[in-house]
């Protein structure tokens, strides 16, 4: 008789960490599609390269740490880190940029801290920030979105993109394909009425930044899908987007400061939606209580707004996320829900 001792409960819901990560991967597709449409093949090549690197680094780290490789690769967390970093990198970033970024993300940000579940900082964002600080030129050279300016050469073909990233046989192509993004311009033209500056208008699209608005829309669609599938709760995304909306409404709409973008501009430029639905929803590095997550989102949204408007960097998602990763345990500590039949912890402590 097969009488074994197993602890209750004896049933479990379907799925595991791996299936959750796979859903997230799936949900990045609309955004990736838009990136590829507007900015060419570069992002796709970057992502494949980043995933390969992530798998190699993950395997190496696991081997070094003496962990079962196959088992941990199945959680797909390394793949996801690769994809997210790949999405965030400029489409024609040279191969070694990706290599350094992924290396930092997987080896330092993840395994140095003890692997999945123990990393206090979002690995992809650590990789991104390290790159932004180390290679500012490469990291801010974004391809111009398609059809933006009349007479502009078409987007690079797949092989052209490939050799731009891996300049093995040929020299990198001459510049001229990259341009400042709307957020960069926004920074450079602070104080001007930027919407009227000649030659700048082009970088702005219908409601956000040209091209970017569609990419952001893609992430939004993917994010809503994940919300629908209950991969995460609405708290953090709503907090972040809400804070951005509110602050830009106040400064742009109410105080009429024209150098600060409109709410739509903030929502649909740069990495806003990628951040709101794919970065700050990373469970490991965010707050875990619901109230904590809401605050976490609000804080990140506010930081993004502040850095975008008055800081030195054009976009701010990565910095804001890392800052708040740091604060997440405190948020959790102070937002511990009152458990059934208990007085709130801090209330009781005050009484003590």
């Amino acid at each position, binding site marked *: *008789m*097969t*009488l*074994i*001792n*197993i*602890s*209750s*409960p*004896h*049933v*479990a*819901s379907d*799925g*595991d*960490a*791996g299936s*959750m990560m796979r859903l997230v991967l799936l949900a990045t597709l609309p955004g990736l599609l838009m990136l590829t449409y507007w900015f060419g093949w570069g992002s796709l090549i970057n992502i494949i390269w980043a995933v390969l690197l992530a798998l190699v680094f993950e395997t190496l780290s696991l081997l070094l740490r003496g962990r079962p490789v196959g*088992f941990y690769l199945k*959680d797909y*967390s390394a793949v996801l880190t690769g994809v997210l970093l790949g999405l965030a990198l400029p489409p024609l970033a040279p191969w070694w940029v990706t290599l350094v970024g992924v290396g930092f993300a997987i080896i330092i940000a993840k395994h140095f801290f003890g*692997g*999945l*579940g*123990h990393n206090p900082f979002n690995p992809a964002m650590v990789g991104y920030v390290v790159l932004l600080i180390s290679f500012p030129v490469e990291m801010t050279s974004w391809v111009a979105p398609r059809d933006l300016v009349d007479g502009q050469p078409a987007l690079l073909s797949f092989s052209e993109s490939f050799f731009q990233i891996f300049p093995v046989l040929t020299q990198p192509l001459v510049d001229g394909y990259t341009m400042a993004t709307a957020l960069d311009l926004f920074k450079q033209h602070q104080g001007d009425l930027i919407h009227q500056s000649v030659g700048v208008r082009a970088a702005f699209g219908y409601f956000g930044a040209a091209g970017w608005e569609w990419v952001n829309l893609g992430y939004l669609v993917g994010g809503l899908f994940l919300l629908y599938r209950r991969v*995460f*709760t609405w708290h953090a995304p709503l907090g972040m987007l809400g804070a951005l909306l509110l602050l830009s409404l106040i400064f742009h709409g109410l105080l009429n400061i024209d150098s600060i973008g409109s709410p739509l501009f903030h929502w649909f430029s740069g990495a806003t939606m990628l951040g709101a639905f794919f970065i700050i929803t990373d*469970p*490991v590095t*965010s707050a*875990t*209580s*619901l109230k904590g*997550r809401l605050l976490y989102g609000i804080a990140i949204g506010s930081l993004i707004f502040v850095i975008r408007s008055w800081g030195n960097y054009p976009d701010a998602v990565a910095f804001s996320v890392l800052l708040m990763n740091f604060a997440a345990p405190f948020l*959790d500590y102070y937002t*511990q*829900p*009152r*458990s*059934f*039949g*208990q007085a709130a*912890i801090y209330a009781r402590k005050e009484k003590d």
Partner: protein
Amino acid sequence: MLNNLFNRLRGGIHPPDQKQMSAEQPITLMPFADRLILPLSQHIGTPAHPVVKVGDKVLGGQLLAEPDGHFSLPVHAPTSGVVIAFEDHRVPHPSNLTAPCLILAVDGDHLTLEQEGFDNFEQVSKQELLNKIRGCGIAGMGGAGFPTDAKLKPRSNKAIETLIINGMECEPYITADDRLMREHADDVVTGARILAYLLDYPKRCVIAVEDNKPEAVAMLRLAAAGSQVEVAEFPTKYPSGSEKQLIQLVTGKKLPTGKLPSDIGVMVQNITTTVGVYRAIIQGKPMGARVTTVTGKAIARPGNYKVLMGTPVAHLLKETGYDESKSSRLILGGPMMGFTITDAQVPIIKTSNCVLAPSLEEFPDPPVPQACIRCGKCAQVCPMQLLPQQLYWYARSRDQEKLQRYHLFDCIECGSCAYACTSNIPLVHYFRAAKGDIRTRQQQQQAAASAKLRHEKRVARKEALQAERDAKRKPRPKPDQAMDKNTEPGKIIASTTETIES
């Protein structure tokens, strides 16, 4: 209805309920086993004292063992037969405990003692009814097996305002209470009325049923028509049948940690217990049998069986067509809170509501847990609003102080968190182990403290003796000094026992 909206249960899960396998099977009598194994303490409290000896022929309903102490209950013969042994035997318990048992060889004649109940219970004094309930060995059939008469004597002065009969049966697979309510709705309602009488007619007397049992609700409503007893339906959600959650659903009150339901004027009784009370009072019958659901895909004829107390689980399995080769494990109770047994010879006792024999496809071996990714799913489903991910973290680092700060002892071990966990971590297993560790440490500390007390007492006694001798030797003693030393530790001992008992 509006009430229900506000008292919504927070957290909770919707596991597949799998009740269809057995829900439509009417209660049928399980053929008697050859041997019954009757634990002398199948409830909390000290074992009962046997009043028969090996070789005695006994009748069904005859007293076999007398209670010893307040929380002890009598044991009766479920049917006629011969007492063949008193021995230690495995009993249903998560840690495979053995306990003193009486072994009865069943003769199959099923001769029973004439028994008398009360026709009109409202004319009988409460004490007499309580004595009868006690005499029939009725215990809480839901969980711990607490003697029902003791529960009915509220310890605080507060009057019971709400009596809740728990017909939720929220655990998947189990349908024993469902069938009892459908087939014996009158008995349930009468039992509820008896309980209401014993509790001085609470303002409300509610039979609470999950809305996945419409037939039971209909039958109960029919039976309760014209009486004070209400039948209330609640949305199906696990674990809404858990005591604290149920109290909140019905009354809107959250039972504060460390309080008993009676402290807030509520009492919850189980369906089987209620029917047991009915049988004891109206028919005068002790608990000789109970309805047990035998189900799972390794069982050929799943259903609800009236099983004699003490019937070995193996006998149930044999009679229901258990297929050993298919079975992945044997569970007593439901899939969420039941425990596995490794010895099918354990007997059915008053709290055995289900024997679950799932197949391997149904309950495959548990997957290897992955790392906790702090997704918070566990916290979202915890009906006690705990943070299982934090508890898990501290359980692994054995941080007992933090565990208590995060209210480990409020965990009702319902299993919702482990069910929902993204990384398949057996969270409840960790929590149980951590609770055990903390209890052990507290016991050790207590033991150390009382050893110290004993030592101090001995020293004091010696000194007192010495003082006495000195006093005899010397004409001018100092008795008050000696007295002081003598009484001081004694006082401490008295106060410690007090705190332990209260």
